[in-house]
């Protein structure tokens, strides 16, 4: 399986990679992008099985990325990994087609709970 990680922070991408490993998803192919626009291109190029995206990013936000993917007919499973965990943002994410919202700071357990239905 291929997972695309979209976050403007290199440090946070590294933490996400480490947490995926700790959660038991070490064997997956990981691709990174540093904003929504790069993420959009990476979905076309790499055809990932799952997108994990930050919400607030320069160039293109995570919610704009999700809406652009769905508008373009891309049904790739999509989840947010964000510090924006308020109920209204979770509702907005779900209405746009996100499968889950993982709130920062997260744990390997919260990754497992969210990713299990997608990655098994």
């Amino acid at each position, binding site marked *: 399986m291929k997972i695309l990680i979209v976050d403007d922070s290199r*440090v946070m991408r590294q933490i996400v990679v480490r947490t995926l490993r700790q959660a038991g998803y070490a064997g997956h192919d990981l691709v990174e992008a540093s904003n929504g626009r790069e993420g959009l291109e990476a979905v076309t190029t790499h055809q990932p099985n799952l997108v994990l995206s930050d919400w607030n990013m320069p160039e293109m936000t995570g919610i704009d990325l999700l809406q652009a993917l769905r508008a373009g007919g891309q049904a790739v499973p999509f989840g947010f990994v964000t510090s924006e965990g308020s109920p209204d943002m979770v509702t907005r994410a779900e209405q746009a087609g996100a499968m889950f919202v993982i709130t920062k700071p997260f744990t390997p357990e919260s990754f497992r709970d969210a990713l299990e239905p997608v990655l098994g």
Partner: protein
Amino acid sequence: LSALAELRPDDIRAVSADVWSAYLEGHAAEDCPDPTCPETLTPLAAPVAPSAEVVRAAVDILGPCRGVVVLELEPATAHAAAVRMLGDEPAELTDVDDAVGELVNMVGGNLKSLLPQSCSLGLPVVVRGGGSAPEARELCRVDFAWQGHPLRVMVWGHPAPVPPEPKEARP
């Protein structure tokens, strides 16, 4: 002032402790359960004067609860935080700014989630050398120690925008 004024030091303590516990305390704190362990983010009763070379990371809260969440720490502490967040790998200056920006982003995002009004978060900004924010005033602050060094988390409020005075009707 905005709903940011409702945030209390206990909110800052709880949110900051969650962030530090997830990414900065690590096994070192588990090996050292004493609450005064230097690896544990420890609130200080008395404020500590900031270093002249303070690193300041700030993130705006936008919308009806307009203000700024600020993290101030010394350069060596900021570097130690970046190394820890990178999994004990070496950190360049850009990594340090990235790491402290993420820290304030997480603290700010979680504080914002406690507010009754729906607000949004800006992108974090990191500056070195401190200075004061124009038109901002401190609403809440907690001083901490981590790895034996002081750091502080603050909430600054911007005064609500004053509506323009109605122009006098011309005769």
